[in-house]
């Protein structure tokens, strides 16, 4: 074991720092999170800058226009961009991390040539149409139907939790093409243009008060059969391919941001007073915040382990589910400590004068999503229990 970076990795970091030092002053402030048109334009512009500098698709293979960076270089990229407060992957998330890798692995040459460059350049925004009101944790029970009519599929049904739906050009979609087959075997993976007639997008208001995602309704939406990726009824396997592309880097930016939140919260605790003393005078509170910082340090080490494993074997192994379970628990404890430190200042989602409470209150609310999105804590525990520990299945 050796945590030091190789000369090549150090050179990669130096080059990236040099570019970021030049590029960042040209990037304006991030738009309001709920202004989706402005957010999309902001993310697209950043992605184009990355593309022109040779950093787009950092972990995509070179043959598909990516940089072909190693898992360690990918980690360095995320570390450095977070350090300077560069824009996140944002609305390019589904294209770069989900649809793109799936298309690379499973799609036809024509589909690859059309879609992959547009994702890399930030020209196309993608959204995901997997979950449905009746198909959440039990995703394979999805019901949205696609029926063949000549050279087209006719889609009817409803998707939910669809991020960026209102600004996306394309949707990666799981549909049921054989209702009589066992549930995992009657599903197909489709590319659906979001401007097709019959698509109705209805934003959902979240507990943050904004609308990060939508419900999407499909009413006789017609999509060419050539938009299918993979064989008909083989869509479940196609969708799973994406997950093997994940190399333990999914939460790096969030983790680094969380570390900053803890440090900033300590700074606030040194300022705010109650009962005649600064909150930080409370030894119990100092221990709790220190404990959280230690857990985040441990999550950072776990990230290094997962990436080390990915660098060796190509997949991060058991680390993904373990990381998510531990991370969401730590973030929720941070949320509770945030309430205590901020006290009445925790009652405003927006910054109060001189407090800097806003991002902490937003983070406090966001923490509640970490144990639900991308596989609930309960589903993750089933995965760990059954696939890692080998305990018998209930079903």
């Amino acid at each position, binding site marked *: *074991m*050796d*945590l*030091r*970076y*190789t000369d090549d*990795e150090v050179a990669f970091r130096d080059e990236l720092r040099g570019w970021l030092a030049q590029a960042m002053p040209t990037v304006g402030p991030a738009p309001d999170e709920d202004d989706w048109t402005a957010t999309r334009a902001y993310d697209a512009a950043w992605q184009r800058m990355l593309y022109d500098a040779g950093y787009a698709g950092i972990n995509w293979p070179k043959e598909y226009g990516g940089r072909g960076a190693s898992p*360690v270089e990918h*980690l360095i990229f995320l570390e450095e961009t977070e350090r300077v407060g560069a824009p996140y992957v944002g609305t390019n998330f589904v294209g770069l991390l989900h649809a793109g890798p799936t298309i690379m692995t499973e799609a036809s040459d024509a589909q690859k040539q059309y879609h992959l460059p547009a994702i890399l350049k930030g020209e196309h925004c993608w959204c995901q149409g997997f979950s449905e009101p009746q198909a959440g944790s039990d995703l394979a029970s999805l019901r949205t139907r696609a029926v063949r009519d000549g050279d087209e599929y006719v889609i009817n049904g409803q998707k939910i939790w669809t991020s960026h739906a209102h600004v996306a050009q394309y949707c990666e979609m799981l549909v049921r093409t054989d209702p009589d087959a066992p549930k995992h075997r009657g599903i197909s993976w489709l590319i659906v243009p979001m401007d097709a007639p019959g698509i109705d997008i209805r934003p959902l208001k979240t507990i943050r008060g904004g609308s990060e995602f939508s419900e999407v309704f499909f009413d006789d939406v017609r999509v060419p059969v050539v938009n299918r990726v993979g064989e008909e009824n083989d869509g479940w396997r196609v969708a799973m391919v994406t997950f093997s592309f994940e190399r333990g880097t999914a939460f790096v930016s969030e983790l680094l941001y969380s570390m900053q939140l*803890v*440090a900033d919260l*300590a*700074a606030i605790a040194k300022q705010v007073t109650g009962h005649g003393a600064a909150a930080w005078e409370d*030894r119990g509170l*100092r*221990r*709790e*915040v*220190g*404990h959280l*910082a*230690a*857990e985040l*340090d*441990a*999550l*950072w*080490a*776990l*990230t*290094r*382990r997962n*990436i*080390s*494993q990915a*660098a*060796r074997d190509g997949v991060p192994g*058991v*680390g993904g589910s*373990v990381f998510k*379970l*531990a991370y969401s628990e730590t973030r929720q404890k941070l949320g509770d400590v945030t309430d205590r430190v901020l006290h009445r200042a925790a009652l405003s989602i927006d910054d109060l004068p001189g407090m800097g409470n806003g991002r902490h209150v937003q983070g406090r609310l966001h923490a509640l999503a970490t144990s639900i999105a991308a596989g609930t804590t*309960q589903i*993750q*525990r*089933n995965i*760990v*229990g*059954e696939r*890692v*520990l*080998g*305990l*018998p*299945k*209930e079903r």
Partner: protein
Amino acid sequence: MDLELSDDEAALQAGLRSFLEGRFAMGAVRAAADGLDRGRWRELADTGVFGLRLSEDDGGVGLGMTEAVLVFEELGRSLVPGPVLATHLAAGLVDGAADGSTVVGLIERPATVLLIEHFDALDVLLAIDDDGIWRIDLDGLDAEPVARPLDPLTPLHRVAELASGELLAGPEVAATWRQEGAVLAAASLLGMAARCTELAVAYAGEREQFGKPIGVFQAVKHICADMLTRAELARGVVYAAGVTLDGRGVDDAGRLVAAAKITAGDAAKGNGKACIQVHGGMGFTWEIDAHLFLKRAIVLDTVFGSVDDHSEAVGATL
């Protein structure tokens, strides 16, 4: 950057595990309640556990903290009894520690309650404080045995006071021992946390109620998943702390040492409790090993800084 075991590191760990499973199976470990087996102590020394970090010229193995972490993970996993950590730290400072001919104990001071572990087995007793490492005259000690120590495999004697003793090493060595001791205690706690997970999973897979193995039920399965999560969270940072103390790191060593002791302490105590719970009524019996892991975890949390102590230290860096 690589935080996965190299082939040599994996071989070292596998070799020691194989030795410990043969010579320190639970029957032999439990027998230590009646006193330390000097023969087995010598065998342990022969594997290089105590002289691991001494140079080969000094009769050691010439390895570093990275390897010592893997060794102590195994010692913890097998609940090897006796003052293994104190004797390991003392190798090079106390003659005969490395080869197993001298059994060395260590007490941290100042402390309100002065408890000496494995007193009857000791050839040498050291004390560590801010000023250095001291040798305490065992013959001059008025030590009272604790009738019922919490951990039956960690016998205790109480002394009312300690003479200052003979200074063997200064404050810098003491500071180094504290960091190394915290990381190696964390490594033992990690091994215990992982072993508890294995024991609970094995039991959940074979014990049947309502016509099924209890591991089928999510109420039990999720306890086991959380056990693995706690152990794996600790594993990365414990390894990282060892590597960093060897000068092959990139992050602050002090923070990593503290985070290692905190998360490994949480993991071993949490998993010890969970292991008892998964075993149900049997888990509360003396016969099932689960309690021995929890009790040792409580012992190790009190050495080289508790979870609370290190949490406060991390807080002070913010």
